[in-house]
């Protein structure tokens, strides 16, 4: 393979037919170029999708109380199920492999007034537990998040985001200042990073207070709006299992039929991600199919040319065989030439395609549907592998033809 003689001959053969080599190479170049473009577009779609999920733990399930649709043990349907604080601990014990769990209570079911000095703003107040931070991938910029002590001691503390800070505090440092939430003073202990995106796009940032304080101060009567938990086994089966356990636990505690799908509103992120992922896998497979298709057109071109090359070199190959070249040597020669031709042309296509996609990624702003359409290194390596395989395929038939040359006939051939 790393034989100077062989390479010299490959260059010789290509050098003698530059135009032909360029035209043939172009087909392969175009094939791999299109493959990269298509895969880049696929990656862009997928990245846009993942971006929408970035703020939630993908191995999490969220449960809301809803309305029953089936009678159960003498109870009528159409009962409202409301989750309680006590359900949180029950779920924590019922689900094996649980990682984080947090209840959430939305104060006044909507926007509340926040005031600092003369500045006021309307915000969504959420009573949450410390583990909420891991479930929503909350990033703290300054100060800290709600912690266990806040929770246990029902501290009136609050964590706000940048937009809230600007509205209420202008240039001031908000930490350890007191803001009024619907007239009740809360101490600002932290600033978190809020990224509007997905369903929360355009809305204002929520502000967080401890669930215990929310219960006490705003008289929630031990109720929560939803409970979110994450678990170790992030497989579809593991998620199903966790969901089943959670539903059964709550069914027992709230007396409803565990098969009643309307009693709880369940948002299983693993399943969501799985469903959308499979759509994207389908799109990706289709893009590979189309890309490989155009690559095959290029390969057929190279194969065709190599057949002509073999035909032209029949006499020369015959001489070589008479001088002791084994069929394997002859096959190797033709195969290497085909692989070299496709390899070089394809490499050029690969580089240009990657550059183009990088260029697009840096110029076009990311959106929810399309962002960062760059090729992963492993995809590029797969494309490269596809190239080498295609080179070998392109060379295979001509090489077989070359190996079948009988020296005696080749020497007669003029």
């Amino acid at each position: 393979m790393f034989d100077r003689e062989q390479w010299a001959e490959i260059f010789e053969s290509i050098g003698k037919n530059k135009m032909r080599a360029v035209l043939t190479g172009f087909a392969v170049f175009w094939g791999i170029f299109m493959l990269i473009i298509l895969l880049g577009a696929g990656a862009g779609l997928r990245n846009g999708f993942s971006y929408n999920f970035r703020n939630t733990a993908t191995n999490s399930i969220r449960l809301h109380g809803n309305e029953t649709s089936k009678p159960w043990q003498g109870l009528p349907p159409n009962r409202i199920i409301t989750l309680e604080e006590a359900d949180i601990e029950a779920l924590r014990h019922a689900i094996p492999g649980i990682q984080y769990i947090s209840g959430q209570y939305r104060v006044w079911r909507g926007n509340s007034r926040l005031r600092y000095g003369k500045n006021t703003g309307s915000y969504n107040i959420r009573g949450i537990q410390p583990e909420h931070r891991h479930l929503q991938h909350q990033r703290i910029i300054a100060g800290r998040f709600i912690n266990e002590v806040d929770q246990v001691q029902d501290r009136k503390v609050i964590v706000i985001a940048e937009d809230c800070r600007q509205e209420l505090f202008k240039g001031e440092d908000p930490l350890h200042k007191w803001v009024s939430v619907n007239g009740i003073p809360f101490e600002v202990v932290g600033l978190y990073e809020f990224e509007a995106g997905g369903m929360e796009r355009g809305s204002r940032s929520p502000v967080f207070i401890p669930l215990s304080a929310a219960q006490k101060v705003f008289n929630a009567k031990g109720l929560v709006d939803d409970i979110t938990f994450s678990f170790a086994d992030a497989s579809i089966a593991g998620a199903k299992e966790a969901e089943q356990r959670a539903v059964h636990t709550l069914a027992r505690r709230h007396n409803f039929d565990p098969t009643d799908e309307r009693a709880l509103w369940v948002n299983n992120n693993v399943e969501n991600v799985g469903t959308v992922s499979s759509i994207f896998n389908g799109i990706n497979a289709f893009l590979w199919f189309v890309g490989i298709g155009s690559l095959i057109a290029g390969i057929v071109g190279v194969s065709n040319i190599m057949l002509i090359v073999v035909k032209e070199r029949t006499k020369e190959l015959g001489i070589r065989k008479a001088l002791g070249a084994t069929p394997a040597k002859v096959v190797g020669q033709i195969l290497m030439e085909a692989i070299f031709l496709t390899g070089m042309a394809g490499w050029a296509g690969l580089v240009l395609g990657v550059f183009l996609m990088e260029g697009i990624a840096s110029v076009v702003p990311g959106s929810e549907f399309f962002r960062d359409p760059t090729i992963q290194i492993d995809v590029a390596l797969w494309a490269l592998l596809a190239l080498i395989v295609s080179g070998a395929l392109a060379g295979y038939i001509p090489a077989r033809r070359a190996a079948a040359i009988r020296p005696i006939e080749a020497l007669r051939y003029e």
Partner: protein
Amino acid sequence: MIVLKDIRKAYRTGANLLQVLKGIDLEITDGELVSIMGSSGSGKSTLLNIIGILDNYDSGEYRLDGMLIKGQTETESALLRSKYIGYVFQSFNLIGFKNALENVALPLYYQGVPRRKRNELALAMLERVGLKEWAHHLPNEMSGGQKQRVAIARALVADPKIVLADEPTGALDTRTSAEVMALLTEVNRDLGKTVLIVTHERDVAAATQRVIYLRDGVIENAHLDPKSLSTSMDGVRVTNKPAGDVRP
């Protein structure tokens, strides 16, 4: 060295079966300088190709250095060729885009000789045929005689036991033919190679030790005395007689 027993070979041309060799019995011992003569179509080239393991035969037995040559795979044949046989062709069959040195070194390449060693041996062989200064010239820059000498150097470079020459002077003028024959004689005498030349030129045949005369696929005379041929060729006397069939 070469033992043929009842070798038969037929070519299929359409529906017809053309019997080219009809039972050849022949023995050539180590170190002989032999020519094969015969009219065109007498089967002499086919015979040479069989001996050179470039072609197979239908029936009979061919032993080269005691080894039965039959049923070898392509790869085995290639190895046997490179070990035992050096070829010289009428049309030289040098590779056009390789210079003299590279052409001569080619058989060594297929024997896996390292590059440096290869070029050393090839250059020594070119010197032997008197073309050392032409080592880096391409074939199309050389005369026919020079090309054939390069071809002879190539045939000899891998130190084969046998040199087979198919009409080696067919494309050369008489003077150059004489030079080439002188070289082949020298190869036989000084290097001790068995040399087998197919020719239809009596001048060429006359320069060998023994002439095998072939007619219609059978050997008519396996031990024709070259002196019985009407002309001789030693580089001094050159005849302008057209080459033709020899009828003993």
